[in-house]
C-alpha cells in the first residue's frame, strides 16, 4: 500500500516537473504556427527523457551517487568544472524564465506588471526553500500543478481531428518557414530533455533514500510520469493548433498564450491557464533552484539536504539564496521572460552533449552499477540521444539567429 502511494506521488511529481514555462511556450508556438506538425518533437523528447530519467534514478538507487557526485569522481575536477559552468549557466536562465512565468501569470491576473512581482515572487520561492522540506516542495508543488490537467480537458473539448494529429507524430518537413520550424523543433527538444530534471531526480532519489529494491518502482515512475507530462505538452500543442492557427495568431507574448483556453472552456479557461502557469512555474522554479544548489554542494562535497535547517548546511542554503535573488535582477529590469525562455531552450540544446556523454560512461560503470548497468537497449538509446544532442548543439545557435 505504501509503495502504491509512493508510486502515485512519484508520478504526480514527474508530471509536475515536466510542464513549465518552456514546454508550454514552445508547444503553444508550435501549435499556433504549424498545427499538429510538430507533435513528433514532443514525442521524441518525451521518449528520450523517459530513458534518461530512469537511468538517473537507477544510478542513484544502486550506487548511492547522484549524477553530479559520479561525474566529479570519474571525470575529475577540470572536466566537472566545465560541465558545471555550462549546466549552471543554463539552469540559471531557466530559473529566470520560471520566475518570470510566475510574474507573468500574476500580471495577467492582477494587471500589475511582472517586474513588480520579481522581488515578491523570488522571496516566496526562497522562503519555501528556506522553511520547507524536500517532501513539501516535491509533493506540494506538484499537487498544485495538477491544475494543468485542464489543458487536456480543453484540447479534447475542442474536438481535434485525431487522424491528422496522429500524422503529426511522424516528422515531416514544412512547406515554408523552414528555419522557424527547425528553431521551434529544437526548442521543444531543449525544453523536454532538460538535464536539470535528471540532476533533480537523482538527488531526490538520494534524499528519499532509495536502494536497489526501488528499481522497478523507479521504472514505473519514470515511464508513467514522463508519459503523462508529455501528454500534457501535446495537449497544449493541440489546443494551440485549434485556437490560434485558424486565426493566424503567432505566439510572441504571454498575453497571447493566455487566450489558449478561452474558447474551449469559456467560463474558466482564462483562469485555468493563469493558475496552471502559476503553479507549474512555481514548481519548476523550486526544482531548478534546488538543482543548482545540489550541483554545487555535491560537486564540492558539502553537506546538503533540503530537509536540514539552513545553518546545518550553510553553504548549500547560501548557494540557493544567492541564485534566487540574482535571478530576480533581470526581471526587475523588465527583460521579457518569453525571450529568456526561448534562449534558454536553445542553450539547453546546445549544451546537451556536455550532460549526456559523461552519463553514458557512468551508466556503464561496473563499480557503480554492477549487474544493473545499462544493457545494449539502453546504451543504443543513449547513443541515439547523444547523436541527437550533437546535431542539436550544432544547429541550435544558427537557428536561433535565423529563426528566432
Amino acid at each position: 500500500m505504501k509503495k502504491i502511494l509512493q508510486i502515485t506521488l512519484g508520478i504526480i511529481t514527474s508530471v509536475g516537473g515536466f510542464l513549465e514555462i518552456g514546454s508550454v511556450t514552445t508547444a503553444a508556438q508550435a501549435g499556433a504556427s504549424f498545427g499538429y506538425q510538430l507533435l513528433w518533437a514532443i514525442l521524441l523528447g518525451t521518449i528520450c527523457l523517459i530513458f534518461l530519467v530512469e537511468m538517473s534514478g537507477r544510478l542513484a538507487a544502486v550506487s548511492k551517487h547522484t549524477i553530479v557526485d559520479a561525474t566529479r569522481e570519474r571525470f575529475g575536477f577540470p572536466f566537472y568544472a566545465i560541465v558545471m559552468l555550462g549546466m549552471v549557466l543554463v539552469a540559471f536562465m531557466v530559473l529566470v524564465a520560471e520566475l518570470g512565468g510566475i510574474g507573468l501569470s500574476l500580471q495577467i491576473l492582477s494587471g500589475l506588471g511582472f517586474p513588480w512581482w520579481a522581488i515578491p515572487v523570488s522571496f516566496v520561492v526562497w522562503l519555501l526553500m528556506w522553511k520547507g522540506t524536500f517532501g513539501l516542495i516535491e509533493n506540494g508543488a506538484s499537487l498544485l500543478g495538477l491544475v494543468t490537467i485542464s489543458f487536456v480537458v480543453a484540447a479534447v473539448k475542442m474536438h481535434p481531428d485525431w487522424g491528422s494529429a496522429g500524422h503529426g507524430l511522424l516528422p515531416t518537413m514544412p512547406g515554408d518557414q523552414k528555419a522557424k520550424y527547425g528553431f521551434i523543433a529544437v526548442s521543444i527538444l531543449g525544453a523536454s530533455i532538460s538535464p536539470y530534471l535528471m540532476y533533480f531526480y537523482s538527488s531526490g532519489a538520494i534524499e528519499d533514500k532509495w536502494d536497489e529494491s526501488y528499481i522497478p518502482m523507479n521504472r514505473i515512475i519514470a515511464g508513467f510520469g514522463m508519459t503523462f507530462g508529455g501528454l500534457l505538452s501535446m495537449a497544449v500543442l493541440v489546443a494551440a493548433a485549434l485556437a490560434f492557427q485558424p486565426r493566424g495568431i503567432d505566439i510572441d507574448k504571454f498575453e497571447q498564450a493566455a487566450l489558449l483556453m478561452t474558447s474551449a472552456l469559456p467560463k474558466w479557461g482564462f483562469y485555468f491557464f493563469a493558475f496552471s502557469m502559476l503553479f507549474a512555474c512555481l514548481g519548476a522554479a523550486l526544482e531548478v533552484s534546488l538543482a543548482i544548489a545540489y550541483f554545487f554542494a555535491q560537486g564540492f562535497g558539502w553537506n546538503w539536504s533540503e530537509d536540514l535547517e539552513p545553518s546545518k548546511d550553510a553553504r548549500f542554503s547560501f548557494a540557493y539564496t544567492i541564485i534566487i535573488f540574482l535571478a530576480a535582477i533581470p526581471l526587475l529590469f523588465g527583460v521579457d521572460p518569453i525571450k529568456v525562455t526561448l534562449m534558454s531552450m536553445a542553450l539547453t540544446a546546445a549544451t546537451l552533449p556536455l550532460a549526456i556523454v559523461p552519463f553514458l560512461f557512468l551508466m556503464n560503470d561496473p563499480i557503480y552499477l554492477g549487474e544493473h548497468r545499462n544493457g545494449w537497449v539502453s546504451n543504443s538509446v543513449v547513443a541515439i540521444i547523444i547523436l541527437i544532442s550533437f546535431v542539436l548543439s550544432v544547429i541550435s545557435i544558427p537557428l536561433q539567429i535565423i529563426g528566432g
Partner: protein
Amino acid sequence: MDINVELLLGTKVRDVDGTGVGRIEEFHVQRDESSCRVDAYLIGASAVIERLSAWTLVRPIKKLLHSRKLLTVYEVPWQDMDLSDPLHPKLRTAKHDLRHVK
C-alpha cells in the same frame, strides 16, 4: 621531494632516449595499515579508460576495430620512473622495453 599527484596527471613522459611515450593517466597503489605506496604508473591513452572504469563500454568497440595500437597502455614500475623534474618526467628505460597491459 613532494609532488602533487593531481598536477602530475596528464603530464607527457619521455623515455631515456627522449622519445615521447604518452601521458601519465593513472597510478597503481598498494595500501597497507597506514601507508599508500605507488607501485606503478599507467601511461597512454587507454589508461584514461582505466581511470573512467569504462572498459565495459570500450571493449566491444576495440574488438570491432581489431586494433592494438589504438589502445596502448604502458605500465611503468616505480623504479623505472625519474621524477626529479616533475614537469618533464623521464623513464630510466627505453620505450621498446616497456610492458604492454591488456
